């Protein structure tokens, strides 16, 4: 395979995707769930068929006594389930609102009731950024020890490529993000680096075998050798992810969607981004390997 010949095209595709992602992140931002913003979410399974209009009307009546309900978001889901999102309400108010709803509307069973304080939400953002930074640093450290710094740098660039594209697509889709999304992003980090290292491992091995060849040729050779593995591993991982996406229920859909995009981006970047970047960083000077 001649990846290096057309590396500008491959990198170009990545840059376009990254720019679109960054634009979406800048303009549209995320649809933050209550894990980040703080607030309440109530998921109620009603005993009879419900519709948006009637539920909303009843909530409007209750709103008179509890103005916090005025900035609610109501959603109807399959199986007579109503999902109500509101700003933070305390336990007492929540109890009263629920009691009124049952009295004025229909009987229900509480499937889920979460309240997140705004302090917790703010902390979560910091925790996420921290985790991302610590993970990046440790990975750079590990790859520098096992390979060399240029490889580490290229791996991190590939990694940010994958994370930014995943964030961008989720932002474009407008999916609501909550704390499991952070786990998804970090997992993508793991997957992406895993994939990239398999390619790097081949480059390292081939460099040792043919110290006289140009790095570009060695990269092409190495990618050809691991190409099938990269595709097959992506296929098996994607099969697993798709199964969860289709059958795993709605509550982890954003989490799984993020993984799906991340795996696709990760496979692309390990072949078309990481190695060309190593070559560019190299710019002709000889690579020394540990």
């Amino acid at each position, binding site marked *: 395979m001649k990846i290096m010949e057309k590396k500008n095209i491959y990198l170009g595709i990545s840059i376009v995707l990254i720019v679109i992602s960054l634009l979406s992140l800048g303009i549209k931002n995320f649809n933050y769930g209550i894990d980040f913003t703080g607030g309440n979410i109530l998921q109620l*399974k009603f005993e009879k068929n419900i519709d948006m209009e009637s539920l909303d009307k009843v909530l409007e009546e209750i709103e008179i006594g509890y103005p916090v309900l005025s900035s609610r978001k109501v959603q109807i889901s399959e199986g007579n389930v109503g999902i109500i999102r509101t700003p933070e309400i*305390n*336990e007492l108010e929540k*109890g009263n609102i629920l009691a009124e709803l049952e009295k004025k509307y229909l009987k229900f*069973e*509480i*499937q*889920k*009731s*979460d*309240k*997140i*304080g705004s*302090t*917790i939400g703010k902390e979560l953002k910091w*925790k996420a950024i921290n*985790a991302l930074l*610590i*993970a990046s640093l440790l990975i750079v450290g*590990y*790859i520098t020890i*096992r390979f060399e710094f240029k490889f580490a740098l290229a791996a991190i660039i590939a990694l940010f490529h994958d994370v930014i594209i995943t964030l961008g697509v989720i932002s474009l889709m407008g999916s609501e993000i909550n*704390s*499991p999304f952070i*786990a998804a992003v*970090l*997992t993508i*980090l*793991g*997957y992406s*680096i*895993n*994939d990239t*290292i*398999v390619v790097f*491992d081949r480059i390292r*091995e081939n460099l040792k075998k043919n110290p006289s060849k140009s790095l570009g040729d060695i990269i092409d050779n190495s990618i050809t*050798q*691991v190409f*099938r*593995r990269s595709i*097959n*591993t992506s*296929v*098996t*991982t994607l*099969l*697993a*992810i*798709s*199964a*969860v996406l289709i*059958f*795993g*229920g709605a*509550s*982890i859909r954003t*989490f*799984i969607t993020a*993984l799906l995009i991340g795996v696709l981006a990760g496979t692309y970047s390990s072949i078309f981004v990481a190695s060309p970047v190593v070559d560019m960083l190299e710019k002709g000077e000889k690579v020394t390997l540990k």
Partner: protein
Amino acid sequence: MEMKKSLMVKIGLIILIILGTGWLTFFKETRLGLDLKGGVYVVLEAQATDDLKVDDEAMKRLIEVLDRRVNSLGVTEPTIQRSGDKRIIVELPGVKNTEEAIKLIGKTALLEFRMMEDGEMGDVLLTGKELQKADVSFDNLGRPQIAFELTTKGAKVFAQITRDNIGKQLAITLDGEKQTAPTIQSEISAGRGVITGQYSVDEAKNLATLLNAGALPVRVELLETRSVGASLGEKSIAQSYQAAIIGALLIMVFMVIFYRLPGLVADVAIIIFAIISFGTLNFVDATLTLPGIAGFILAVGMAVDANVIIFERIKEEMVLGNSVLASIDNGFKKAYVAIFDSNITTLIITSILFMLGTGPIKGFAITLSIGILASMFTAIIVTKLLLKGFVYLLKVKSTVLFGVKEVK
């Protein structure tokens, strides 16, 4: 002979591991997280006031009181743990009435006795600290009320108060809210009394529980509460189970189509992988959560990766014209470094997730870590043994079974 002996030992060990983890998988109950079992998760923060500092001592007493309250709920595996300086995380898996449980945790439940003066409440004369015990009882009309008994010291103070204030109203308040204000008829020296509010039987029971457990030593704020109904958890388990089976089947079919004999071996390895990782999860008594299941399914996908790396290497060796057995040996040797390096970095990530994450994310980090370790074990040791075993038993000489055309 020597070779054979060490091989036998290896096979014996692997069978032992599979049997052990298999037993753990099928006979030990898995600890389910709140999102799967239903239950309550609460993060509360102690609030300092002008005259009350939040120090270690206060936190210790706070945990003790919470412990007593939670015990009254009859939850099988409650956890109450301190998190940071001022926070406590309470988890009550399987608790039925989630709303009541949250109320029970967050209430300060400070009982106070004050005299009513001109319709206003006066100074606090006695508090719930002097309470010996509280019980639900019923008045003549069958309405629930709370009967209380004071400590010896409390009884003396109570006798004094009632003696001095006959004919006046005595207010009993809970967290500053007046519950009842009966008029004192005569001195009460036995230290017993009843609180009659407009309670339902459940409310009265909860109140008695709260009073017995004692008031929280500091005011707390509920920063985060999450509750999941049991039925939703059951639905999630059923859905994930289905997703896991279908995902695994798809992968297994793919592997056989693409890798033939080694694919079949990888499929056996996947089953062994599933048993080992699930058994390990049960062994360390880790909690399985919904993202945790996703972590497992993801691990299956990644577990195959190690096999794919190895098989591709073996194929390469065969294309070079090596014999089947030599190709297997060389392939494993060369694949090992890549598998090791790539999995270590993923483990770095899961460790960070474990340290920084809460509940469900921790569950995800645990299952993914176990999955990665188990996948390395099965790919490097089990697959190799199985593959060589097959080749040996079936006397495979041709590389066609590996999806490689015969090299002449």
